[in-house]
């Protein structure tokens, strides 16, 4: 896509530049150490502030008749709480704060990333993989702690014919280990692709020359359309990540089919 732009309008635009991790204070080329304050740090901190703004400040009045902000906070709470309760059952409720943390963080990071010029932390595989594998290891350890060796019955589909069970067990085992990968790449891939496409359309919108009269309005329309889609995707991906976490948690709590 970038090459087309190069040949077509004689423009240079770099849809992936928005994802570059760079020190907040200093030049792009400066080294990024573990503790360096980068644009990642800034936007993660903003996600924390957004979380506090969304769930803490709005509820400070503790009104019985909620304000608009408090309604949103209660809605988010009820949404995730019901999801955890529906998917994992009553005994999954005690893991609700962890799942709420994931949901709110992903939601805030996704929506903050939609602000023009923003850095989208959830578009980075390093970020989503930490969460994906974190969920994977937590759920696996929890499964063994809660059920002992019988947790392995998750892979032994007792409702299938006996001859098929070993094959199914192999498939189940593979799918189990693929989970964290798909879990994290799904989120990062969605966010990255959407933002890259936005940038591509935005690049086309600055085309000059003969075709500009057609290309520019179409690309602006494209930006608007993709942006609307991204708003939807931002929420849906947060939802998908959260509900999959709940499903994995349910497997750990009730491994028997």
């Amino acid at each position, binding site marked *: *896509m*970038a*090459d087309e732009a*190069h040949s077509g309008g004689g423009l*240079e*635009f*770099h*849809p*992936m*530049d928005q*994802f*570059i*991790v760079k020190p907040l204070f200093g*030049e*792009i*080329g400066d080294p*990024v*150490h*573990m*503790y*360096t304050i*980068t644009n*990642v*740090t800034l936007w*993660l*901190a903003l*996600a*924390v502030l957004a*979380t*506090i703004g969304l*769930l*803490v400040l709005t*509820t400070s009045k*503790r*009104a*019985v008749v*909620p304000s608009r902000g*408090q309604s949103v*906070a*209660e809605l988010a*709470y*009820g949404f995730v709480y019901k999801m955890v309760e529906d998917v994992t059952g009553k005994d999954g409720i005690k893991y*609700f*704060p*962890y799942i*709420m*943390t*994931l949901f*709110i*963080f992903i939601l805030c990071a996704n929506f903050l990333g939609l602000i023009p010029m923003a850095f989208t*932390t959830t*578009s*980075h*595989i*390093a*970020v989503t993989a*930490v*969460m994906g594998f974190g969920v994977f290891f937590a759920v696996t350890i929890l499964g063994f702690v809660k059920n002992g060796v019988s947790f392995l019955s998750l892979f032994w589909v007792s409702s299938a014919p006996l001859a098929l069970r070993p094959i199914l067990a192999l498939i189940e085992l593979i799918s189990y280990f693929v989970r964290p990968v798909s879990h994290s790449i799904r989120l*990062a891939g969605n966010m*990255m692709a959407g933002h890259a496409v936005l940038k591509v359309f935005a690049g086309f919108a600055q085309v000059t020359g003969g075709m500009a009269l057609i290309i520019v309005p179409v690309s602006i329309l494209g930006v608007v359309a993709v942006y609307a889609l991204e708003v939807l995707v931002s929420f849906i991906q947060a939802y998908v990540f959260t509900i999959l976490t709940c499903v994995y948690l349910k497997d750990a709590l009730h491994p028997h089919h």
Partner: protein
Amino acid sequence: MADTTNAAGEVALGAPPGMPQLDIGTFDNQVFWLLITLVVIYFVLSRVALPRIAAILAERQGTITNDIAAAEDLKAKAHDAEAAYDKALADARAEAQRISAETKATIQADLNVAIAKADAEIAARTAESEKAIAEIREGAMEAVAEVAKDTAMEIVAVMGGKADQSTIDTAVSDRMKG
């Protein structure tokens, strides 16, 4: 995709080639800050936000339950009040009827007494009148007797007879009785 982004990446000023997502050199930085972020959010949620929202929701549920109970209570009270009102109305009506009947009875009694008194008075007056009439009649008879005696004496004297007073009295009395 990798090729095109590669081309784009290389144009960027000193930026690492390829997808920035695959630049392993920034991973430790991202992971470090992400873990801090998640821990902070977890503590903000589990210590402040979630208990508070749970308390708000519980309080609202309680308020709603209480309000419904209070409404039921008030409804029952209204029902009772209506019953009491009806009862009071019926009582008042009965009382009014009683009072009216009593008053009627009292008036009737008073009337009876007054009538009786009036009757007695009328009877007394009648008796008195009759007595007076009788007296008058008596007086009239006496006067008639006297006149008759005097007349008889005068007639006898005119006839030239000498009449004894007692004889004439007896004769007149006899005639009058007779």
